[in-house]
């Protein structure tokens, strides 16, 4: 049931809306087709980012892909939580790691171990428009624990212009979503993971 709802929302509605009305072009999204599990890392400037990525995912396993969202921003009310859970398929996590019983890395790790795919914005939150900031360490911890999972960089170009931070009106703007090849990590040291993945994402900027 959830799968059907997600397919209608993303593979049918958002994909066509973004393609025809907004002017989004999908580049190399075929590379996701024969991968069962992946962690997508993307730059983050707008709420449209999640819609764009979700609409690019093959409908066959869209129900197994979970965008990661911060509970303090999106989990405000019960209604919001419900919408995030069923309409966005999101997993809500805490931003800080103070509580050892409720570690966000653990909950993400659990999802990956259940062979779920994740969408991560390693910059943390929607930064300044068009500027990429340094990645947070959480991504590296997650990759360290799941070394065999494909990590695919996704570059979202100009998508923030259709719905900039703090604006409510969605306007068309020619933009693109570009999928890279799975990142090959040479070492799984914390710093190396971060620099390699940052480099891989920046390589997609043309």
């Amino acid at each position: 049931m959830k799968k059907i709802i997600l397919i209608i929302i993303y593979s049918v509605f958002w994909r066509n809306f973004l393609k025809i009305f907004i002017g989004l072009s999908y580049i190399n999204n075929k590379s996701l087709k024969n991968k069962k599990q992946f962690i997508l890392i993307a730059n983050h400037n707008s709420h449209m980012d999640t819609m764009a990525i979700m609409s690019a995912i093959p409908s066959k396993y869209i129900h197994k892909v979970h965008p990661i969202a911060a509970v303090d921003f999106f989990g405000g009310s019960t209604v919001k939580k419900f919408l995030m859970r069923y309409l966005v398929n999101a997993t809500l996590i805490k931003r800080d790691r103070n509580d050892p019983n409720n570690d966000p890395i653990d909950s993400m790790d659990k999802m990956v171990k259940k062979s779920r795919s994740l969408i991560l914005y390693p910059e943390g939150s929607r930064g300044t428009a068009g500027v990429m900031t340094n990645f947070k360490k959480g991504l590296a911890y997650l990759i360290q624990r799941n070394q065999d999972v494909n990590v695919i960089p996704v570059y979202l170009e100009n998508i923030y212009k259709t719905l900039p931070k703090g604006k409510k009106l969605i306007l068309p703007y020619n933009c693109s979503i570009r999928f890279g090849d799975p990142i090959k990590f040479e070492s799984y040291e914390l710093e190396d993971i971060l620099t390699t993945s940052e480099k891989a994402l920046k390589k997609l900027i043309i």
Partner: protein
Amino acid sequence: MNKIFNSIDLIPEIQWVIAIILMILVIATTLFWIWGMIKPSKLVDEMQIRTRSWWIMCSIFVFASVVDPVITYLALGFLSFLTLREIYSLLSLRETDRSVLFFCYLSIPIQYFLAFKGYYTLFLIFIPVFMFIIIPFLLVLTGETKDIIRTMCILPTSLMLGVFGISHLALLINFPEMNSNGVSGKALLLFLIFITEANDIMQFVWGKIFGKHKILPKVSPNKTWEGFIGGVISTAIIGYFMGFLTPLNSWQLILLSGSIAIFGFMGDAIMSAVKRDFGVKDMSNAIPGHGGILDRVDSLSTTASPFFHMIYFIILSA
């Protein structure tokens, strides 16, 4: 589906044009295919991609022009929308302009509705008079005056090119004077688009073969006097032979086609200058081999309204 095709009453002239378009495409495709087999080069590859895009554009166009007029209106409105989107994506406007852009997009359905209803005067003045005043005022309302004059100039101009110009194509379809006394709006629409695109191709071909003396060396190095003059003359000749689509006599046809060629050249040159200013070669890569939507419709947006008003003048004075 039946309802859509019910309204097809293809007059023989239109059938002829469709046959001619099909023939040209088939000839061009085989020609470039053989040429590519014998002597592969970059130019041939580009021409093959271009021809493939022509196939798609022609089929969309032929389909849109033979089905129900409502669909033709929607298709042309969508073309205007794509043009505006391309302009606004390229010209980095201020973030405060966003809310005003919404009203620019909103003017598309209004303009096409006026065309559909045939409110001639309102159609004519909606953008050059009303939007010309309303858009700058809306910009003033945002309160941000830094660089406001740039946006104040860009937005009405983009509406004139992308909406006002192209919507004249739609006006041709069921404008009363254009659809009586043996005149068919659809045939005139076909004539205009055929002439405009033939002019583009002819200028390109003449320029490629004989081009030596640059006409606009600083703006567009591809445009030459040879291409321009050859284009105007051959467009006038093509127009003369396509005259069966129109109610005009021979010298009217030649003058009209010649001036359409000149207007088309102007549109092309204007957009070249804009692209040069922004340091891009093509507006986008929406149509393989041609560039963006605007790279293809730039000449149409400047030929449509002059064509309409010249024809209207001739029909009225006849």
